[in-house]
């Protein structure tokens, strides 16, 4: 019924690693290979965002979440995509601070959504309660 659930369960580990490395890069102690590290983190974040999209579609089709909730998810994911695009654009011009800041901004909503979508049991009411703190990513 939820074919993407096992993969989604790996998201917290992925995101935890991403946040730790992003914080290190933003603190000014980034190693010379910071951009390469960013590329890997960015690729993982894009993959995670897409995974949330697919899982949300599955949850909606299974009626675990409502259409209204799905619209909110799509809206938040649009902001996540914008933040990821901004992060990637900043990285292309070597702006590490902006790149890591926007990457971190994108990861926040992804982490909340992955947590809420893996709630057991997942129901409309439970998702509503879980997603109270869900806000769009803010581009810095």
């Amino acid at each position, binding site marked *: 019924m939820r074919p993407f659930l096992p993969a989604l369960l790996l998201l917290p580990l992925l995101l935890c690693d991403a946040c730790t490395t992003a914080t290190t890069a933003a603190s000014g102690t980034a190693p010379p290979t910071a951009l390469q590290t960013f590329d890997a983190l960015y690729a993982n974040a894009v993959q995670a965002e897409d995974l949330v999209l697919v899982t*949300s579609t599955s949850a909606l089709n299974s009626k675990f979440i409502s259409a209204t909730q799905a619209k909110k998810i799509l809206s938040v994911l649009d902001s996540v995509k914008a933040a990821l695009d901004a992060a990637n654009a900043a990285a292309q011009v070597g702006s590490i601070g902006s790149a890591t800041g926007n990457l971190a901004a994108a990861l926040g909503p992804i982490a909340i959504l992955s947590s809420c979508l893996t709630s057991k049991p997942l129901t409309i009411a439970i998702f509503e309660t879980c997603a109270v703190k869900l806000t769009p990513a803010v581009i810095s």
Partner: protein
Amino acid sequence: MILVLLQGVLGAAPQLLALFTQAKAGQAVSTTQVAQVLSQYGIDRAVFAAAIAKAEAAAGMGQTATSSS
């Protein structure tokens, strides 16, 4: 129902709508153009938007999902 779904998908992907308009005007649309638009937008996003449009149509909400990206 079909029109609602189509509207949801097109509303979510304005660039696809532009290709439809181009084709309707008699100008050729290449597969490369379509692939380029889809790669920029993301097919999973379009599928999600379509699923929302379908759910709303089933619920009689009369609104369609749109995506800004």
